[in-house]
């Protein structure tokens, strides 16, 4: 997917600052600027930048896990909104509910780990805080959005693998990342690709955008 699919509508953020951050698709994804073919509202960028900063600039496990909790909370909000949106077919509705519950399991586990480390979980976002989410109008919109959301999570966990110190957190992070990859498979299949194409790369890097079918 090319970076030009990421469209930012100017809001109450400084566009030049955003452009500086969004030099590459990878950077954009790491900051949670979810595209999915949707037009994004820049007004929510500050929260997402804060999430990304926890991953990118943290010098310890607490900051990394705080960022991971925020990402998982965002995923919970997104799947919950999608589940209740009324635009999904029955099978996709059930998948969205399952994935919401699994993202909640991730958030709960990471929150417990964070509290053990002396940290405090951020407040869960409202749907309106997740940029682009409330603008989704069709099942294809939701699927593409969810793929970008999962991609952002995968990228964040890859980064976390390099920086986390705790063996237990490394193991848990790998298990969660693998689950996000499984979500990606289901989402890609739902977009109509073949089973082979639902696993497009031997190394899941979170860089394969929604399939174009």
């Amino acid at each position, binding site marked *: 997917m090319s970076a030009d699919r990421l469209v930012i509508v100017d809001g109450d953020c400084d566009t030049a600052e955003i452009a500086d951050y969004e030099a590459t698709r990878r950077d954009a994804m790491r900051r949670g600027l979810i595209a999915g073919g949707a037009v994004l509202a820049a007004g929510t960028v500050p929260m997402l930048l804060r999430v990304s900063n926890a991953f990118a600039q943290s010098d310890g496990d607490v900051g990394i896990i705080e960022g991971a909790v925020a990402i998982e909370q965002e995923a919970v909000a997104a799947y919950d909104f999608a589940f209740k949106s009324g635009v999904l077919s029955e099978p996709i509705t059930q998948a969205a509910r399952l*994935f919401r519950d699994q993202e909640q399991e991730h958030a709960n586990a990471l929150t417990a780990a964070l509290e053990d480390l002396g940290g405090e979980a951020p407040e869960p976002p409202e749907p309106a805080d997740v940029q682009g989410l409330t603008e989704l109008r069709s099942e294809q919109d939701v699927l593409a959005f969810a793929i970008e959301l999962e991609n952002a999570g995968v990228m964040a966990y*890859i980064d976390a*693998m390099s920086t986390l110190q705790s063996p237990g957190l490394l193991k848990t992070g*790998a298990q969660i990342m*693998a*689950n996000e990859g499984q979500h990606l498979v289901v989402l890609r299949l739902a977009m109509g690709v073949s*089973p082979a194409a639902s696993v497009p790369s*031997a190394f899941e890097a979170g860089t394969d955008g929604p399939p174009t079918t």
Partner: protein
Amino acid sequence: MDVACIIRDPISRRRFFGRAGVTFVGGSAVFLSACGESQDQKDEENEPSSPEADIDILNDALALELTAVEAYTKGAPLLTGAVLGAGEAFLAHEEEHAAALEQAIVDLGGKATAVKQELDYSALQTQEDVLEFANNLENVAISAYVDSIPKLSSGPLRATAAQIVTNEAEHVSVLLAALGVPAVPSAFVAGNPEALG
């Protein structure tokens, strides 16, 4: 399908599990050795390792990947249609994993000494047999990678291992879907070191 029937030769089975570190019998057992141990023991074993230990871990991973390459190669003739397409793609993925691991071993100054394990594939008679066997093999590999990640000494190696284990987990979802069972059964993909019996 009775998976145990596939691995009829107990000597080969012990060699496979030992070399892969799967059941902690012989071999380096570095790659996976956490089953049945206390958390303190796990934490102790999960201390960051040296490049030399990394080479052992990567060779054990390579053995699993080479075994997976053979398994998908042996199973492919029993697959049809879209499932065959997936099997061929997964075979290519395992080959890519093996090549990357070999390169990483060389980059660390080591030698790729791993060899594929000799399994008995004669019990594979149907597409369903192949799907179930592949699912079990993938789960063994997932368990091994998840346990190995904290033991690898460098961030880039851990990141690459996480990308591989996520790919294996994705294979599992496709295999489960093809078997007609839930494709994402757990929020935490831990694999199963004893999936092959």
